[in-house]
């Protein structure tokens, strides 16, 4: 940066605009180089020079000038006001619209989720109702079986096994409530095969009557209820249980594992 002293003598004339082009150029270059002292001096000199305006003799502009100016200014202000877009949506409203859109998307998504939850709940309720019906049915069977097993009018029919490896079963025949066959420690039939009860008629040559099927549980226990046995136990010669394919058979396909004579 050049020494500021050589420019200080030019500062007042520079502020006055009286420098010749070459001198003015050198001062401007010096100021542009960032001389803070000279910049401050120029600032003060400009203020001083502006005070020279008060050397002008007092004078008053015409009222017409004031009128013309105010007319122009009012017209421009009115035009600027009219030019403002009437329906400009303020920034905050865009934000509100965005929030509303997001809220709508969210509520739609939430509605779908709620509907899915309702559907799942309905399905679960259906399953619960079915389970309750099943349990109620099992309870009815158990109550009926309990009556058959405890009623003194029931007739006990022992059902020994043909093999010594198999446990002995017991059957109870109630003339009105039906037949209950119970077993413990019964081996599970192979695969999906099942145990099937047969009623053997006394009539010579009559075929065995197919009845209920059962599979023991994991502990080897089972209980089989025949709700509608023949009206007359006297017509039945014996009860027999065979192992049959899943779904049972119309005629025994294997030799009976258990047989119990009714009399």
């Amino acid at each position: 940066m050049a020494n500021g002293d050589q420019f200080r003598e030019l500062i007042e004339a520079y502020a006055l605009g009286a420098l010749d082009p070459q001198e003015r150029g050198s001062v401007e270059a010096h100021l542009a180089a960032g001389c803070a002292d000279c910049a401050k001096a120029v600032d003060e000199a400009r203020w001083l020079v502006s005070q020279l305006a008060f050397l002008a003799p007092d004078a008053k502009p015409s009222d017409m000038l004031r009128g013309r100016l105010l007319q122009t200014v009012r017209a421009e202000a009115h035009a600027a006001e009219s030019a403002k877009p009437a329906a400009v949506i303020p920034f905050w409203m865009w934000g509100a619209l965005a929030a509303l859109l997001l809220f709508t998307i969210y509520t739609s998504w939430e509605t779908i989720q709620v509907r899915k939850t309702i559907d799942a709940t309905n399905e679960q309720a259906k399953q619960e109702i079915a389970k309750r019906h099943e349990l109620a049915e099992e309870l009815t069977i158990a109550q009926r079986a309990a009556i058959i097993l405890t009623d003194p009018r029931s007739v006990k029919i022992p059902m020994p096994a043909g093999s010594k490896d198999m446990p002995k079963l017991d059957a109870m025949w109630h003339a009105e409530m039906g037949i209950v066959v119970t077993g413990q420690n019964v081996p599970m039939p192979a695969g999906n095969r099942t145990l099937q009860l047969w009623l053997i008629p006394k009539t010579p040559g009559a075929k065995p009557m197919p009845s209920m099927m059962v599979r023991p549980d994991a502990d080897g226990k089972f209980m089989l209820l025949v709700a509608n046995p023949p009206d007359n136990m006297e017509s039945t010669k014996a009860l027999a249980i065979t192992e049959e394919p899943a779904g049972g058979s119309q005629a025994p396909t294997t030799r009976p594992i258990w047989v119990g004579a009714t009399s």
Partner: protein
Amino acid sequence: MFLALLANLGIGPAPVEVSLDATLVQSLVRRDVNAFEQLYDRHSRHVYALVLRILQQAATAEEVVQDVFLQLWRNAAAYDAERGPFVPWLLTLARNRALDHLRLKSERQRRREDQTDELPPVAAAPEYERELDERRRVERIRVLMGGLLPRQKRAIELAYFEGLSHSEIAAKLSEPLGTVKSWIRNGILRLKEGLQTVS
């Protein structure tokens, strides 16, 4: 308002920032016609007197004064109140426009599109500016300049009111260039000292 309160309590800056002129110019930015009216009524006499002194013709002077105030109305945001007071800035703007008009007229190239719309920089006021109110400061300036040699005062007036350079003034007064430079610089410095000694 807050700055003015601090200033009144003696714990804040001087209330330059909240001068009435600065407040009115801020209102111009918001297209406040009443603020424009007040600014015109406060300063149009000084502006007109200056422009008339430069142009020497009332109709032309009014035309330039109209341009100056319309430029203020349309470019109020160009004035930065934090950098300096309003009146010196407005007077500098008026002087520049009048001298532009004068030069173009003398060159017979008066074409409005050639006129510069450049606004002057805002000059920071010196500390001693607050020592006198405007009326007393005007009187002081006239006394100080009246005390100069007539030819020295004439040289300063040629520079300020006619926009002549050192060389042009020297030629017009038939004085050596160095003499003109000294007259002008010393005259401005005397003005400065005269205003400073008041305080």
